[in-house]
């Protein structure tokens, strides 16, 4: 381990996941694997995402294509939720002007 990153091999050992799973996540751009000198690393900052994908795959049986699609939909849901919050705030503002 070095600094704020995790050795790729350590990552496979800790999470008990197949290399092919992480590789597929990397191929679709869901996880970044850093190559440096002769070592490969995963940034600590990516671990929350990785753990989430591991849950989706191993606990819910969702394949990588499904994870990719879900991730996209979740981003949409979050942005729509914040849009709604913003609109609710604005609506509250305009209603308060009428009082």
């Amino acid at each position, binding site marked *: 381990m070095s600094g704020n990153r995790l050795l790729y091999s350590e990552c496979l050992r800790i999470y008990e996941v197949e290399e092919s799973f992480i590789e597929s996540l990397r191929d679709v751009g869901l996880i970044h694997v850093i190559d440096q000198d002769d070592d490969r690393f995963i940034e600590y900052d990516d671990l929350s995402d990785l753990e989430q994908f591991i849950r989706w795959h191993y606990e819910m049986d969702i394949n990588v294509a499904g994870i990719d699609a879900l991730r996209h939909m979740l981003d949409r849901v979050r942005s729509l*939720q914040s849009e709604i919050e913003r609109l609710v705030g604005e609506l509250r503002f305009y209603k308060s002007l009428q009082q």
Partner: protein
Amino acid sequence: MLGVDRNASAEDIKKAYRKLARKLHPDLNPNDKEAQKKFQELNEANEVLSDPEKRAKYDKYGENWKHGEEYEKAQQQYRQQSSRQQQWSGQGGQTFYTEGDFSDDDFSDFFHSMFGSGFSRRQSGAGTRNKFKGADYQAELRLTLRQAMQTHQQALSINGKNVRITIPAGVADGQKIKLAGYGQPGVNGGPNGDLYITFIIEDDPAFKRLGDDLYTDAVIDLYTAVLGGETMIDTLDGQVKMTIKPGTQPNAKLRLKGKGFPLYKKEGRFGDLYVTLKVHLPEHLSDKEKELFTQLSKIRKQ
């Protein structure tokens, strides 16, 4: 909960669990407390059905669990434990909850009482994945409008650790910041989770905010509205003197440039303040006043 019959095989249970988990998992239902609760129930059902020992215990006490002596005892223990687990404190009404992954705390009282607090969902049935990074915490921090207009520090107590955070002026309602490393501790040498703080900006009685602009009312008397003059207007940073033009109508709006809310992380820049002028009409007129108003009205009618 799982919708499987009594003789369901382990494989059936696993399938049913996964199918429901895909619908109810908090990962896939952001900000949905109802789904979170249902997912908790799902895990409890799964836990029981996947473990013969627990299954037997549930069959024995399950139906009347609220009345059993064992339940009472366990409840008491659980309450003591939970009071120790109340580690969040601080100013300004913070609430904390976890999202995503689950800890022991996420199980209901019932399961704590049945199986003790060591009960964990990661024992059977669902995949048993190893953890490394600690879970992220979600928190809310309430600020008054006046607090949010100034860059200031707040002391938070997070898991017994005192943390001072700097909140930049102009933070928006619903805005989220991340404090890396202030979540649940990591396991097996892993990094801590992160703490996400969502700011809730409370309404102010005098100033309403829309984006970076502020809105307020100011009352002037009839004579100032009719004849013009000067009035003092409250802004968030003190009073300013304003000139009122003769013949100003009720509810006329004035814009005070740069007297609004500070722009987030853009020091020295501010939105505008919009002032709605309310005209206060004289009440309880004296005889003399009545006479003069009558004269005025006659002049207008001519």
